[in-house]
């Protein structure tokens, strides 16, 4: 326990330093945030424009789709903010920087995560929270708790996939493009009611790449639409736990691959 607390404390300190670093370039930071908002906004603009003509998408109203969109964006931002430095993992391996990380007495993953703060992704968070707040259906306290758990769970699902793929980079495989593609699939397909996808695609987006569990499944619970899911309602209610389980699994994969890490020796 003391070990965990110490890790958390050090993580907090390193992140504060990273944030101070990012704040040195204020204009760059501002432009990054604005770009994030515009980027996510233009994605939602598509939904807004088409739902001007068609009142329902897979049986969902504009407000319901907006809620789903906001839930996914917020979860996504919550994953990217701490994990954005994983993008540079290939570089750390190739340049032998990872050797330094391994020598320090702090969890290597925590050190890598603390290398940079994904301040640019604050724009994603902003866009997501705004959509959530505007479109949120009336919720009782229990549902609010579920909503918060769902956001964290969704972030963990995305983080788990990303971490598991990144682990392979420790064996000198370049997975950057593959990870970008997985992220792209989460972003593209995660924000729509799964009813619009055909049987096979829907099945794959639920059980092969768990895109549905990031936001669609929990949003269905909160919008009282569990009847249309292809998983049983109790499973849907437990969906935030799936994120925890997947992340624990991905972390094990990471530890295993880390043991096989061979330095480039340069």
């Amino acid at each position, binding site marked *: 326990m003391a070990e965990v607390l110490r890790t958390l404390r050090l993580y907090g300190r390193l992140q504060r330093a990273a944030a101070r670093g990012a704040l040195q370039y204020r204009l760059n930071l501002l432009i990054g945030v604005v770009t994030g908002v515009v980027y996510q906004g*233009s994605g939602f603009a598509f939904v807004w424009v088409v739902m001007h003509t068609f009142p329902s998408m897979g049986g969902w109203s504009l407000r319901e789709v907006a809620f789903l969109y906001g839930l996914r964006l917020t979860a996504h931002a919550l994953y990217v903010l701490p994990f954005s430095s994983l993008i540079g993992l290939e570089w750390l391996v190739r340049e032998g920087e990872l050797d330094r990380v391994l020598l320090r007495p702090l969890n290597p993953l925590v050190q890598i995560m603390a290398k940079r703060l994904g301040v640019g992704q604050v724009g994603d968070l902003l866009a997501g929270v705004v959509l959530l707040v505007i479109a949120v259906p009336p919720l009782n306290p229990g549902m609010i708790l579920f909503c918060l758990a769902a956001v964290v769970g969704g972030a963990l699902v995305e983080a788990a996939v990303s971490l598991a793929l990144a682990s392979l980079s420790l064996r000198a495989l370049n997975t950057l493009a593959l990870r970008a593609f997985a992220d792209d699939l989460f972003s593209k397909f995660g924000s729509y009611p799964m009813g619009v996808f055909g049987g096979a695609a829907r099945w794959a987006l639920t059980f092969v790449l768990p895109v549905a569990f990031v936001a669609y499944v929990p949003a269905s619970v909160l919008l009282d639409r569990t009847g249309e899911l292809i998983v049983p309602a109790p499973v849907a209610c437990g969906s935030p736990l799936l994120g925890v389980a997947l992340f624990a699994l991905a972390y094990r994969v990471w530890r295993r691959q880390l043991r096989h890490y061979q330095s480039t020796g340069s």
Partner: protein
Amino acid sequence: MIRPLAGMARIGLRFQLAYRSDVIMSVLALVAQVFLLRMVWTSLYGGQGQTRGLSLEALLAYLSLANLQAFATSPIIPRITHFRIRTGTVFFDLSRPTGYLPQMAAFQAGHTAGGLLMLAPAVPVVLLVGTITPTAHPVGYAATLALGYVISLMMSLLICVIGFWTLETGAISLLYRLVSHFFAGTMVPLSFFPGALGVLADALPFKYMGYVPAAVYVGHISGGEIGRAVAVEVAWIAALAVLLWAVWRRAHRRVVIQGG
């Protein structure tokens, strides 16, 4: 004049082909995008016949084409200029006897050719996913697309030139990409844009990079409208040429060579 430009085009082509794994992933992302749009739109139509003058089949063909076009013609030169201004190597480009803008235009053309080459294996897949049939207006399509490409190229050059003032075009070119894709109608045909948004999209030149050629292809724009579109495109090119010339005259006096 021609030889050095052909050289630039060759470099642009090689540049595109050098990052093959990235391109393969972005081709996969393109297929995923077309697939997503197909699913979403099919569900939206839900058995309705024509909406805003477009049948579902025509719409799906439109979307596949517009996305293929956007992919193949995506601008690279703002990134190149950005990098070369930042590192000061733009000095070498400027000291060559061939003009800077023609160099960049040739580079972009080469890059686009490379993009078309990389895209070739994906075309059958996208055509199949997007159910595209031969067009009734091949000449109109080719003309609007070619002129649209020239407009897109000139807009990219304008972004490059802005870099001589701001020294930093990363964010501007990303914003440009987002805005141009949206108003080009790669996800929604312009005929679906409501009210003021529709008026704005119609007035901006971005539609010539996606919507107009693709709509001509599927027959959504036809007859005299094609001729009018071509005329407006030519007018845009003339206007952009004047603007580019005026901005460039000022810009190249402002050149800052960083580092040394």
